[in-house]
């Protein structure tokens, strides 16, 4: 296993839970409202970049409207090689692919999407767990999102 993966593995020990929730998806895909969430550090060019100067990570998130064109997006993340994702964001945060699917009626709709930077260590893990993640889950519910595709770096 690559050294980077081993290091990530150790870091994620803190996040391993014995019990996990599970929500079955019952609606057909063509009627589902979907959202995308990445932890690849994507953000609008005019939004503040993720804080790379804090070695414990940045637990904040950026709201990415579903109709955002790729030219308005950039990536701030020093911990992985995102050159390919910058050439074609569909490999990391596939807004265009999902807009196509929605246009063709293959999914119901694409809701507002969200981006994080991942790589979060204590004490920011607590902030993410207690405040940030429930906040995002709440707005997804409000927007009647039924399923989410998550893509890490």
């Amino acid at each position: 296993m690559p050294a980077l993966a081993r290091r990530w593995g150790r870091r994620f020990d803190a996040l391993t839970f014995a019990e996990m929730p599970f929500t079955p998806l019952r609606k057909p895909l063509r009627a589902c409202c979907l959202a995308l969430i990445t932890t690849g550090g994507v953000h609008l060019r005019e939004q503040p970049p993720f804080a790379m100067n804090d070695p414990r990570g940045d637990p904040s998130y950026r709201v990415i409207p579903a109709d955002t064109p790729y030219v308005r997006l950039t990536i701030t993340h020093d911990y992985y090689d995102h050159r390919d994702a910058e050439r074609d964001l569909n490999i990391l945060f596939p807004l265009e692919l999902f807009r196509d699917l929605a246009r063709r009626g293959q999914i119901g709709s694409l809701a507002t999407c969200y981006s994080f930077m991942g790589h979060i260590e204590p004490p920011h893990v607590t902030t993410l767990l207690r405040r940030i993640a429930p906040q995002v889950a709440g707005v997804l519910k409000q927007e009647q999102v039924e399923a989410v595709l998550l893509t890490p770096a």
Partner: protein
Amino acid sequence: MGLIARTIEAAGIATISSIGLKAIAEKVRPPRVIHLKSPFGHPLGEPFNRAQQLSVVHDALRALYTIEELGTILEPGWAWRRQTYVEPEDWSLP
């Protein structure tokens, strides 16, 4: 990633996470995972390979319906660059 996925799932929204490295998927434990054996930064494939990206997305969305056991890590078995991908036509899921 796992923490965010679990929190969303706990709110009553189904999640599927596309993860390149199985070791990470096993540690962060999102509710449902599709494991691609892809390099970092490529959770859905390679740039400009639309057939590959859509094949992975299709597998991921299908997994929302087929995975019934919590913590399942699905292995579609794509051979990455050695695979010939065809854009999926039938999206009528489940």
